[in-house]
């Protein structure tokens, strides 16, 4: 498709539950990025992929966060045992080699 598709738009989880977010990048884009935007509006980089390979995971809280981009499937970001502080909007973006990043509309995660 011509836009980055993120699902679901909203997700509500009780503290300690698992959350899984999905992202379908634009067809032909080799790079996928995940960002977390908290209420303060600052963007925190989580992880990037080059095709199905992790390129940079320096932003990932390793204990509870994991992500995958498998061939012929949407990319996913999974949070095990969610905490209140995980409440945020999670953005996925994709790009071609040196191109602009195209962002999805985000998934708003609320942890109660």
């Amino acid at each position, binding site marked *: 498709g011509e836009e980055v598709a993120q699902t679901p738009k909203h997700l509500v989880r009780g503290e300690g539950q698992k959350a899984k977010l999905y992202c379908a990048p634009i067809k032909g884009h*080799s*790079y996928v990025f995940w960002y977390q935007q908290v209420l303060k509006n600052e963007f925190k980089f989580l992880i990037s992929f080059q095709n199905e390979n992790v390129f940079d995971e320096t932003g990932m809280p390793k204990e509870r966060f994991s992500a995958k981009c498998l061939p012929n499937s949407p990319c996913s970001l999974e949070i095990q045992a969610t905490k209140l502080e995980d409440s945020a909007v999670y953005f996925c*973006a994709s790009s071609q080699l040196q191109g*602009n*990043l195209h962002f999805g*509309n985000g998934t708003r995660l609320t942890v109660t």
Partner: protein
Amino acid sequence: AQTVTQSQPEMSVQEAETVTLSCTYDTSESDYYLFWYKQPPSRQMILVIRQEAYKQQNATENRFSVNFQKAAKSFSLKISDSQLGDAAMYFCAYRSRLWGAQKLVFGQGTRLTINP
């Protein structure tokens, strides 16, 4: 590591007037991209303008233009003839031109209010 700083958390301007949003960055690289993104209340991320560091000419897109000062590591956004629809958060961002899935490094954002 690269950093991007937006020192103005909030700015306001009268409709039809001009406003400049500031951005500075720090990098040891010589080739990179700089961007301004707009984020309205819908949270959608909209690319406003892009500058390649090797280009001396400042980028322009209709009412939006930048003042790129490479030596000073400064990249300000000028919005001319401000319109109510320009009200949004604006983020300055840096992207390396090195090989690979280079991430965008964002500034803290500036909230722009347009006064009718």
